[in-house]
């Protein structure tokens, strides 16, 4: 079923909306959740929470890209679950590695107490990503949005793991400089 028809089902509060979403995007959302949670049960739970999140947010939203709308919900839900689970010391997964890597990008600004508006920061990151080459950007997003492992990135981009790491390292350094310049 086409995405606009699925969104129409949500707006009509038709229960078929969830069935159609699960049929079309079940595996997609599961992949995102599993990359973060590395646990089948938790990933399934995150996917179910995604359907609930979509049900509660459409309407009033009418997402233009349904896959990323759902993916963003899955990512948020999974990260929250990861946070809860991490508090109980149940494994780490790619997210812990990704978080460690992102420390490289955080400028040791004097304004450490400054409140960061997530929306503003996202806008800055979008502007930064716009400056990258498509491949650099895709690799960065695969790693830090989809939480793909270095091995997966290497396979999907047909580059060595070493090259994948180098690309990410350079992008993180660029992001560091960019954010520092922007006053973060």
């Amino acid at each position: 079923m086409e995405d606009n028809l699925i969104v129409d089902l949500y707006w009509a509060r038709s229960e078929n909306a969830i069935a159609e979403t699960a049929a079309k995007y079940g595996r997609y959302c599961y992949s995102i959740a599993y990359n973060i949670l590395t646990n089948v049960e938790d990933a399934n739970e995150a996917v179910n929470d995604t359907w609930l999140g979509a049900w509660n947010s459409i309407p009033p939203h009418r997402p233009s890209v349904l896959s990323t709308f759902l993916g963003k919900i899955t990512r948020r839900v999974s990260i929250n679950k990861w946070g809860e689970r991490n508090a109980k010391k149940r494994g780490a997964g790619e997210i812990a590695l990704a978080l460690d890597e992102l420390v490289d990008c955080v400028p040791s600004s004097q304004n450490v107490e400054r409140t960061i508006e997530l929306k503003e920061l996202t806008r800055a990151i979008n502007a930064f990503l716009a400056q990258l080459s498509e491949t650099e950007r895709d690799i960065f997003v695969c790693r830090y949005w989809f939480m793909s492992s270095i091995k997966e990135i290497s396979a999907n981009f047909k580059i060595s793991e070493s090259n994948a790491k180098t690309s990410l390292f350079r992008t993180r350094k660029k992001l560091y400089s960019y954010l520092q310049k922007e006053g973060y």
Partner: protein
Amino acid sequence: MDNRTLFKSIGEIDDRYIVSAQSRLDLSCNDAERKNSAPRRHFRKLFVSLAAAVIMLLASFTVVMAANEDFRETVFALFHTPITEEVPGNDDPEYLPPSAEIDELVNAYYISVDDATGIWEVNHSGVLVHHGENKKVYAVEKGKLIELEMDTVSISTEWNGKQIVGKVAWYLSDNVPAAFATEHQLGNNVQWDVSPIDGSLDKAKMFLYLGEEYVRHVYPLIIDLSTGTVSDPFSKADLSIFTRIENVQFSANTAYALVWGTTADEPRVRPYICDPAMGTLSAVRELVNADITNAYFLNSSTVLIAQHTDAAAVSYWTYHIPSDTLTKTLDHISCENPISGTHGLYELGGRYALHISDQGDVCAVELATGYFSAPFEGFSLEENATFFMNSEGTKAFYYVSDPAVEGLGISGIGMLNFETAEFTVFDRENYNDIYEWSIGWLGNNQMCVSVGGNGSSLYIYEFTR
């Protein structure tokens, strides 16, 4: 800022970057799909023909400047009614007023519906559908529900050795047929669905869904609604270049199609123009020599093409297929989301868009020509405002949501008619006493708000201009 804040912010990045990376990740590719991958020789053949097409097109390439004197003279008349709608509560249907007139510009009808026997929805075709024991469809005229007559055709055909059997129901809404499948044969790992072809009076498209879950891909067929005959419009075209087809749009006369899919050399879903009768297939990005992000039919032979660039800007072209004429209509216009407070082009998903200037002035833009209207006098876009185009792409309804209210909390409603250059808006009161959960087009000049709570009601707004 710490790494967790940064991590959260990365989660909200622009959809385009996610979609681009997603296409590299192989999330949607399984073994079955790889087996179906086309050999590269097909793709080479495609590009040889495209190279010739691009050379021809360069000669006819023109840029229309964004500002045009003729369209500047188009002044949109804003009718902001001084009368405010007193939104009635819907707890007791007996006390629901049948109608109200809002300054002769809008007629409001309040209809109590019985939701115990099924669900009511306003569907994609702009009619009311009652999902009860039997599916029934209704138009609304002067506040009365008019059941629409439905025709049914039986389908029995074979595709690649798979039997497809079922029934398709269809009805006319504003003289436009809308169709849906009533009985599907499920099995053979083939599911199918039927949906209208915008502007076509006698045909609908049937999508065969192949594969499983997210790795599904589609194969499009055409149904003749009067006979139930199913035909393969792509019998002459070589669709085997696609490793996966995600969507197909047909022009109203079904003479052309836009096929969205991935190929062995382009893992991202991109549009290709197909002339089914000639069997030709052209990558839109090669015609324009740019990475295309959107394309759709303006009419039976012209495609509107958009390229969103990394710097949050967009360019538009029209491409007239029979004459191979490419015309650039907008060049690198900022398209930051105006709802989030930034200026730029506000795309509505059709031939028209809005533009919000740095000073907050709003004007209409005809994307097919690149013409800008004069700014709407006395109107500024509110933060929680949404526009929603009709299926013909000629009008947009407008509503403002009050974020402090549960549900949609609609504090204002409007109708923007791009063809008559009129914009009617009215404000509402007492909307916070009801729970509004959906809004949609009903026909071509009515909007329907579904209201829940103790009772179920439909609040319908008919615009007279």
